[in-house]
C-alpha cells in the first residue's frame, strides 16, 4: 500500500511541477513516462522502487529553477 501511495505521490508532484514548466505538453510527457511502466507487476517491489528512484531524480532535475520546460520530438 505504501508503495502505491509513493507512486501516486510522485505522479501528483510531477503534474504539479509541470504546470510551471511548460504546462500541458509537459504534463503529457509526464503521463507518457508513467504509462510506459503501467504493466509492471505490483509484486515486483525492486523494479517499482528502482523506477520510483529514477522518477524522483528526474523530477528533481525538472524542479530546478534553471529549467524552463521540456520538449520531445513529436514523431
Amino acid at each position, binding site marked *: 500500500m505504501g508503495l502505491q501511495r509513493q507512486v501516486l505521490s510522485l505522479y501528483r508532484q510531477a503534474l504539479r511541477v509541470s504546470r510551471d514548466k511548460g504546462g500541458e505538453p509537459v504534463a503529457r510527457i509526464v503521463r507518457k513516462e508513467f504509462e510506459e511502466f503501467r504493466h*509492471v507487476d505490483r509484486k*515486483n517491489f525492486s*523494479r517499482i522502487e528502482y523506477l520510483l*528512484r*529514477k522518477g524522483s*531524480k528526474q523530477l528533481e532535475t525538472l524542479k530546478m529553477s534553471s529549467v524552463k520546460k521540456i520538449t520531445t520530438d513529436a514523431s
Partner: protein
Amino acid sequence: MQQYSVGTEKKPVVEKEFLIYRWDPENEDKPKYESYKVDLNSCGPMMLDVLLKIKDEQDSTLALRRSCREGICGSCAMNIDGTNGLACLTRVEKDVSKVSRVAPLPHMFVVKDLVVDMSNFYAQYKSIKPYLRKTTPPEPGKENLQSKEDRAKLDGLYECILCACCSTSCPSYWWASDKYLGPAVLLNAYRWIIDSRDDFTEQRLADLDDQYKLYRCHTINNCTAVCPKHLQPSVAISKIKQLVAAKGEGDVATTA
C-alpha cells in the same frame, strides 16, 4: 633497423572463470552472475584489465566505471571476491581452479551491472562543507600561511580519493546510510577540522554532534582494512570523537 618481436614461444592458454554481477534496468530480469572465461596469459594482471578484455572481446554490454587505471581517480571501486577495492589495483589471483566473483559496491543502489548510484555519498560529502572557511581574509598579497607541523597533520587525510570503498564496507553504513555519514566523509570532515587555516573548527565539530552522523561508528574497522590508498578512517573517526567529547566537557565547564 632493428625488428622487435614479442616473445618467440607461444604462451599456453591459462583460462580462469569470472562470475560477474549483471543487471539491466531496461529488461525485467532479476540480477544474476554471468560466467566469463578469460585467458590470463593474454591479459594484463589487474582485474580492470580482465573486465575491459571481457567488454572488448566477449560482451560489450558490460557496464563499469573506470578512468585513470592507476588507482588515483577512484572510479573503478567494486567488490572483488568479497572485498571492496579498485579494479585497477587488484591483482587477479593466478589460481585458475578458483572462480573469481566481481560485484558492485555492497548495499548501494545499482544503476547497471557494476555501476552504482553515488548520489547519496556525494551529498553527504557536500554536507560537511569540504572547503576552507575563514572569518577574516588573509593579508592582501599573502597566502593562508601554515607551519610544516600543521601541514603534516593533513597527511593521511588529504589523499582520500572518494572511491567509497570504505563506506560501502561498513555494516553501520549499510544499515543507516541515510543518516550515518560513513568513514570516507568523516575522514574528510576530520581533514577540515584539523586544518590550522580553517576558522570554523568548533562549528564543524558541533555539526557532527548528533545521534547518527558520527556516533553510528562502532569501530568495526572494515574501512581501514579496505582503503586502496592505505588511509585509516577509523583512526580519524576516533580522533573526531575525542575532539567532540573534549568540546562537550568544555561546554559543561563554562555553563556549570
